[in-house]
């Protein structure tokens, strides 16, 4: 077994240091080492988006990033989304729209939605469908998820 690597990163606004094996993915590090189990493993090869996190402003699948790669980087996960003022507008609109059934894909969709609306605050239905094609949901048929992201747009606008 190769020696563990020391990594220092900023996760959800907090400085974090950890040791990881070179073969451990960022998803394994988040879940197994840092106990941030909100990011989910659905496929472990970048196909389903259940582990979507924002890495230095970029939406990525944590299962296909190595833990050792994030040294010096900033990572946002679902656990960091809710602030002291309560739920993030996307979290609220997902609830109001019944945009989750089993909920396993929800953290990934909310992170994907956040990354999209930061880039494109007035994303259309088509923009959302295109952007979210990397996130699989097997329960909802996507209808209510798309509506939830659309509904969050004016609220995020107001927040600014």
């Amino acid at each position, binding site marked *: 077994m190769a020696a563990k690597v020391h990594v220092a990163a900023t996760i959800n606004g907090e400085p974090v240091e950890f040791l990881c*094996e070179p*073969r451990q993915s960022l998803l394994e590090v988040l*879940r197994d080492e840092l*106990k*941030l*189990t*909100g*990011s*989910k*493993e*659905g*496929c*472990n*090869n970048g*196909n*389903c988006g*259940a582990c979507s996190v924002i890495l230095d402003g970029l939406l990525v699948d944590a299962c296909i990033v190595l833990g050792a790669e994030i040294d010096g980087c900033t990572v946002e*996960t*679902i*656990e960091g*989304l*809710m602030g002291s003022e309560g*739920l993030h507008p996307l*979290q609220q609109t*997902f*609830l*109001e*729209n*019944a945009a*989750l*059934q*089993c*909920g*396993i*894909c*929800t*953290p990934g969709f*909310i992170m994907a939605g956040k990354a999209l609306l930061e880039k494109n605050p007035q994303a259309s*239905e088509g923009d*959302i*469908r*295109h952007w*979210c*094609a*990397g*996130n*699989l*949901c*097997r*329960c*909802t*048929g*996507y*209808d*209510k*998820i*798309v509506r939830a992201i659309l509904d969050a747009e004016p609220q995020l606008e107001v927040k600014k």
Partner: protein
Amino acid sequence: MNPTQTMDPAKTEVEQKYKVIGTRPIRHDGVDKVTGRAVYGADVQLPGMLHGKVLRSPHAHANIKSINTAKAEALYGVKAVMTAADFPDAGSRTANLGELGEVPLKPMCDNVMASDKAVYHGHAVAAVAATSPHIAEEALGLIEVEYEVLPPVMDVLKAMDEDSPLVHEDLYTDELGEKSSKPSNVASHTRHVKGDLSQGFAAADHVLEREYRCATVHQGYIEPHAATAMWNPDGYVTMWVTTQGAFTVRTSVHQILDIPVSKLKVIPTEIGGGFGGKIPVYGEPVAAVLSRKAGRPVKVVMDRTEVFQATGPTSGSYVKLKMGVTSEGRITAAETMLAYEAGGYPGSIVALGGICMFAPYNIDNTTIDMYDVVVNKPKTAAYRAPGAPNSEFAVECMLDEFCEMLGLDPMEIRLLNGAKEGDIQSHGIPHPRIGCIETTEAARDCEHYQTPLEGPNRGRGVASGYWVNAGLTSSVTARLNGDGTVTLQEGSTDIGGTRTSIAMQLAEVLGIPVEDVVPSVADTDSVGYTEVTGGSRVTFATGWAAYNAGQAIKSQLIEQAADIWKVDKDQVSLADGVIATTNGNSRSMTIKELAADLSQKGIDVGSRETVTPQNHGGAYATHVVDVEVDPDTGKVTILRYTAVQDAGRAIHPSYVEGQMQGGVVQGIGWALNEEYFYNEDGLLMNSSFLDYRMPTSLDLPMIETIIVEVPNPGHPYGVRGVGEVPIVPPQAAVSNAIARAVGVRLGDLPMSPQTVVKALSAKS
């Protein structure tokens, strides 16, 4: 983008009647699920926990000559290794699988881990527990298995041939109740006969005979199976499992491991989708045995490849159908043969395929022959309306062909033949009150169907669907708190918002806000026996148990208030959360006030309820879809989709719509893309989400929904199960739309681009 609609002729009346039912509250477990705090199967972490991994057969069909685990056991970090030899002998014992009935235990044990023979690619043969998942995986590579490779049997019709290789040398056909003398891959042949086929066909003006095939498809839940077990030295075992039925897991593990049910506690975690696929056990008994051997808790989590290779796909199938109609479109006779793949062990869901097949229509003369056939594929599991899409696809496609032939409107032929209350179904059971006609009428009258579709290569398809639904046993425990809220423990695992749809029914009885009911999913030690979350039964049956609990609490509160006021309890009523006298002396108090008083006095108010309701009623749906076909590439684009369905009573309309939309999209995936690809050696070639192509958001439009409410007389609020039937119509609706768009009728699923192109070039 079109808004969702609710069509309810009695809407105003209902709105006055109910305070909670029909509203759309935010689900009780919602915050946990949007913040990442909800604990799913793989999220369980225990002190000292080990990670289990399973070694799987690289062959589709092979005798296992020997397994040597010595090198794996010697690897640093490995704490236990197991094979099927660690399971007690199953003998002739049986296991009860609830919705799926009583099954022999031996095949179930062998499916969890092969003892002498691997019968599909990915069949479990050994397992390791180690201090990290990576070490466990390394150890799997050190296990030496000697196989004798056998020819695989992959096609359901070839498997039925007299000279086919045998998946099991000791399987004899149950041929209409008689055991055959020669071993075969056909596990059973059953038949339903109604009326007289020859008379029926003689009365027909037109007869069609066609073959229809469905590829093997997977439920595709995003959360892989996960089970954690802690086996204590005193023999008590605790398990944390992502499952559709904690009690079913308890029963299965108790029987496979032959340990007392009282020593086994199953704690259901949150569940990331199931659709029927999380009813059987896979890693659960494995985690338990590894924990016993290692003396530490063990978590076994599958990866996506394992999920595809070794867990329940639904049956691939062959259907032959012959139907006769009059020139007016009246169906006079239908004859069918259904052959369903069971996978590596007997027990496909062909029986339900047979029951549902003709249920939307009143046909006097029908014969249905059903064959359950083993092949070298994973043991099939239930998948949303299991068995029904395969058979109803054939009927719905053929009806559309008759419509085109006779110049009939697809809605009118369905209304002409539509089943009504009292009509005898093909298996001899009369229909209860059903919403077949009302649903079809709503579909005919909807804005989508009334709007003409224009443009080249575009077509509109219509199809209906039926699903039987289920009742079965459900339990809740409810207790009034000192602040007037009610804690509600439910036996049903919540796979899509049912904590809330159950709690709403209790809240309605007491006239309190649903936020004042605090529902949770209980473990097997903490609530009465409850069958699986399946059969579209949870809001129906567990909701009924909650209704009863509400009634019991209501009676107790009335008695207590009568006692305080020194009046007869008949002179006290409870409505809208307020208890009041009805004898004119106008005394009243709120539930909160009475609850506080009773709490101070140490008087417990609450109830345990167990129900097994029978009159669940069937569910009907009619769907309309517009497609556009690209004649060069064969790609089919869904332009517009409307699903119309009888919900009986929509307790939480958003979640009813969600079930309809989700079912439609799974049906679209089944129709257009999804299939297991096996190579000539019987090896699965597409066990990833990249290659097993499920619909993404980009593949779809909004899915419009119309909820019809024909109350089920078999439920206090009129509820019918809604979860499963929406997966039934889409396959035929899309096929019919393609036929109308480009003039080719496709009877084999999926209708992938290459299939469409091939059919188009054959036509020209």
